[in-house]
């Protein structure tokens, strides 16, 4: 079956612009996570959705970052007034139900965001 997909694969934007990054999880997965991976670092948690609601957004760095998952499937990460420090790979992962078993997370290929 299809894995987690993310679009676009790469995004270059100018400082101050608004961007949207999309994640399409594995069908039927209720849990969805966004992570940010800066150069030379491991991924860092941003936000977690269980169904349609953001169950934990404690990893969002500031109020310029926002994410939605209106129908409990596709999620969009939105970044306003982008800054050069936002440049990173944004990874999305989904999981059937993290509370059962190990809750293995399946990752997408990421979106590389470059802010010039």
């Amino acid at each position: 079956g299809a894995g987690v997909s993310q679009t676009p694969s790469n995004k270059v934007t100018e400082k101050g612009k608004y961007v949207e990054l999309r994640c399409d999880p594995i069908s039927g997965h209720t849990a969805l996570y966004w992570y940010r991976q800066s150069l030379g670092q491991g991924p860092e948690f941003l936000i977690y959705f269980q169904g349609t609601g953001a169950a934990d957004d404690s990893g969002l760095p500031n109020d310029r970052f926002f994410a939605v998952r209106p129908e409990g499937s596709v999620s969009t990460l939105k970044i306003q007034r982008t800054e050069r420090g936002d440049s990173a790979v944004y990874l999305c992962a989904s999981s059937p139900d993290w509370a059962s078993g190990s809750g293995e997370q399946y990752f997408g290929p990421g979106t590389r965001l470059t802010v010039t």
Partner: protein
Amino acid sequence: AQTVTQSQPEMSVQEAETVTLSCTYDTSESDYYLFWYKQPPSRQMILVIRQEAYKQQNATENRFSVNFQKAAKSFSLKISDSQLGDAAMYFCAYRSSFYGGSQGNLIFGKGTKLSVKP
């Protein structure tokens, strides 16, 4: 808060030989999960192996095995019979159990870049 430390930024191994990647973590929880993920240049994170903290037996997956030392909070990955395709970044990750009250997000180390020499 939990932390994960990978002290080897880079490692190198000869094809067909064995290499061990180190990982230590800090937690006050007794029940949790540990993972090793592989990230090739394509950026796709691929699960290599998982370990449940309540299981004493070390996990194995074909050529990959772990040495889980709960008291020492150590979780190393051994790759046997290394292949060229094993070259990648390897990340160690921690996840609290459901009963720990967290939301299941992974906490990653900074990674180890593994090179395989032909």
